[in-house]
């Protein structure tokens, strides 16, 4: 390693602690997963069939929600009505409260939904429209209306909007007529940024793992969950998630209101983490499961040994992915395979945004060396300074190197089946360095 590279090396824990102590002058990055608060809230309300979300503000914000379509992606949320009160200059000057009242009446007439969620964008928040005053008294029989301030100018992120939406929904659960908790049942929260067939696969694997432990799945938080079923999440004994940190606010609120147990294990990626996820679930639910005598686990251990043998000892892995759960998950996956990981491309702004998550991980003993840079050329230089490392990344800028390019939203990741699939892909990556002529290598 050159002195210039060594100068930028550190530990993940050092960065987290420095950010925590406000010692880092943080510039927000352009991580495109860091949308506005309104977006995070809209996404959560969009899960629920029988809920209609109205964004009080300009139409431009609302149409941003469909940004994936031009890039060839589409999720259920893109197809739902995406209503906005379409602020004009007139509304910014004179206020949009009357429009909002009419919009709610129109939603009631058009959809008569069980739940109307009104969320705001910057315009409505800055001019101070009294959204609460408008919606008060507009609820019809059997209908609830909730509202949130989610303007992006507040600095609230997608994550914060998500949490506020979950908070609002937890209040609705608490206000619903009480129901008995059914012992031995559990709710499964799959990861959110996953869709299509892979979403089905990941959910099915989550169910299979829970059923392996002898548990009954009460409900799966999925896009299209009926409103009543969402409220009935509270009848489960516990909640578990494939990505704890996106669901933790609801877990927390359900724990407070209904005593629902929280399983904080997350990211069942690779065999070690998947077993840890199952063990934490079994422990919380008071189940004694003998993992050592599970033939499927034994078979996966054997497969993992084959991968480890192929990887060799002391080999470095450079992990370059979004700063968040995926980073933690892939670092642990690298260790699962006997690799010695170094994280790159970590964004301090996102560390700040996801501090709760990273603090928990550090408290649980997680740490990893860091090379502090987000620039492709520098990261390529760092990779070149190592002895035949494996690069674990989203985008392949590394011709001639062993590159394990893994995308959570398109490839099976979680649980025992996820481990099997990832081990297979990893072996393939080890034996098949990408051709310099491969179309799938990034062009710079």
């Amino acid at each position: 390693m050159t002195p210039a590279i060594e100068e930028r090396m550190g530990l993940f824990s050092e960065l987290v602690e420095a950010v925590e102590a406000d010692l880092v002058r943080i510039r927000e990055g352009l991580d495109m997963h860091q949308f506005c608060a309104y977006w995070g809230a809209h996404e959560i309300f969009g899960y629920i069939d029988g809920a209609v979300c109205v964004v009080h503000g300009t139409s431009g914000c609302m149409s941003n929600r469909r940004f994936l379509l031009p890039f060839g992606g589409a999720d259920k949320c893109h197809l739902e009505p995406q209503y906005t009160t379409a602020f004009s200059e007139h509304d910014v000057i004179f206020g949009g409260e009357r429009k909002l009242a009419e919009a709610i009446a129109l939603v009631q007439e058009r959809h008569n939904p069980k739940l109307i969620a009104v969320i705001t964008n910057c315009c409505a928040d800055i001019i101070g429209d009294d959204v609460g005053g408008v919606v008060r008294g507009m609820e019809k029989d059997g209908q609830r209306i909730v509202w949130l301030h989610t303007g992006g100018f507040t600095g609230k992120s997608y994550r914060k909007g998500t949490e506020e939406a979950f908070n609002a929904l937890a209040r609705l659960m608490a206000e619903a007529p009480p129901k008995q908790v059914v012992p031995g049942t559990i709710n499964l929260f799959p990861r959110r940024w996953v869709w299509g067939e892979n979403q089905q696969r990941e959910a099915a694997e989550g169910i299979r793992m829970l059923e392996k432990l002898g548990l009954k799945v009460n409900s799966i938080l999925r896009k299209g969950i009926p409103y009543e079923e969402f409220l009935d999440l509270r009848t489960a004994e516990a909640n578990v998630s494939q990505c704890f940190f996106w669901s933790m606010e609801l877990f927390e609120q359900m724990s407070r209101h209904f005593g629902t147990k929280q399983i904080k294990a997350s990211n069942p990626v690779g065999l070690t983490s998947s077993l840890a996820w199952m063990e934490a679930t079994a422990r919380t639910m008071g189940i004694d499961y003998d993992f050592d005598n599970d033939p499927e686990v034994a078979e996966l251990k054997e497969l993992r040994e084959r991968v480890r043998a192929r990887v060799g000892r002391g080999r470095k892995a450079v992990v370059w992915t979004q700063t968040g759960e995926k980073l933690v998950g892939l670092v642990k996956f690298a260790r699962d395979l006997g690799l010695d990981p170094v994280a790159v491309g970590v964004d301090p702004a996102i560390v700040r945004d996801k501090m709760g998550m990273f603090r928990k991980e550090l408290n649980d003993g997680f740490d990893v060396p860091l090379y502090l840079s987000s620039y492709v050329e520098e990261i390529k230089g760092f990779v070149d300074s190592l002895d035949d490392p494996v690069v674990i990344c989203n985008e392949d800028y590394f011709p001639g190197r062993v590159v394990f390019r893994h995308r959570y939203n398109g490839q099976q990741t979680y649980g025992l089946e996820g481990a099997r699939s990832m081990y297979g892909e990893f072996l393939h990556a080890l034996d098949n360095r990408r051709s310099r002529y491969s179309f799938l290598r990034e062009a710079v």
Partner: protein
Amino acid sequence: MDGILDTAPAAEGVSGPCMVDPVTKCAIFGIAQVVGEIRGGTVLVHGPKGCAFPAFEATHLSQVRFNYSEMCEKTVIFGGETLLREKLWETYHDNDTLLMGVISTCSSEIIGDDIEGVIASAGLPVPVLKFEGAGFKRTHRQAIDNAMAVLLKRFLRAREGSDGSINLLCHVGAHSRWKDDCVELAALLRRFGRPVRPLFLDNDLSDLAAAAAADLTVLASPDVGDEAARVLKRKAKIPYIAPPPPIGLERTADWLMAVAGALGDPLSRDEVDALADASRRRFWTGLGRVSSQRPFEHLRTARIAVVAEPAAAEAYAHLLTRELEGTPSLVIFKTTTPDDPEERALADKLPATSRVVVTGDNARIEAELRAACPDILLGSDLDFIKHQGAGRVAYVGVSYPSTRRVYLNPRSYWGFDGALNFVEDLFNAVTDAHG
């Protein structure tokens, strides 16, 4: 016009419809696309993180580099000018910037940040311009027009004579293949033996300056670039024309005649009709290789829906009706200005048997498509995906976004060659969907 306007009269004191699922996007998206067509163009969005998204979406079709000023509650209360100054330099250094566009947002417009003052005091060594990006002021389409005008006002040099050229004012972002269309139109214009200067398609700033030497400006599409064309006329005395887009053989012939008329060129109708006939011959020669013409027969009886911005929707409806003998049963104009007299005039040109809907609301479009249940749909990917569950439909993308089919080589639907491309894609879509 047997049209159905989507605008119930707004209640007193209320501006526009109280609620829509909007067909248009944020102004920032439009501006970023225009700046992205200038080499070295970078935009800095002066607003919160969510406002960077429209600029991100613009990267789908252009090379624009972007950043944002991290606006948060503190800057909304105390102003974000210091932050903006720092971000200007940071963005400049990070992006090999030759032109910087600072785009205001709803937040920065409402709090009244002095963006121009910051630009002046920052002293960047490249041109830096402010663009109004507040979504409550303009849609992305209106912003495209405005951004082109802002750039031309700044960079168009004084006219020092003619170089005989033609400016082609491109319909930036009008749909997913607009660049291919402009390449096709530039080729058509070169038939007049003059240099052609596509404006806002991969330009250097010097191209904008040199535009003052043209003899004529032609709008690629009449609904994009009017404000910019007026700048060219006012500052450089260049006349402009905005003929209907050359979609289909007849309209391409008309388009060439309109240009010839404006240039005083002696091109005759017989000459352009000969070009159209050459395309028709290629059509028939090409068909000789397939055993059946049933897809074209199917058009006569199929339920056809066209959903696009007014100029394009009318033009495709014209092509279908006049050149493929398939009259659309439903034509939807996607617009936020349904009372615009030009758009109403376009609606009047549609076949009397077509149901015409004028709306800026995707929810209305969805309801209309559900009711019409078309066999053939010309529209956007959103229209198609939303309608997919209703039955088999042959889909051709003519409105933004239409990226379900990827074309790595240029493939326009405009002009004589483009008409053949369109017919090919329509034929194949009908075959795939209906056998």
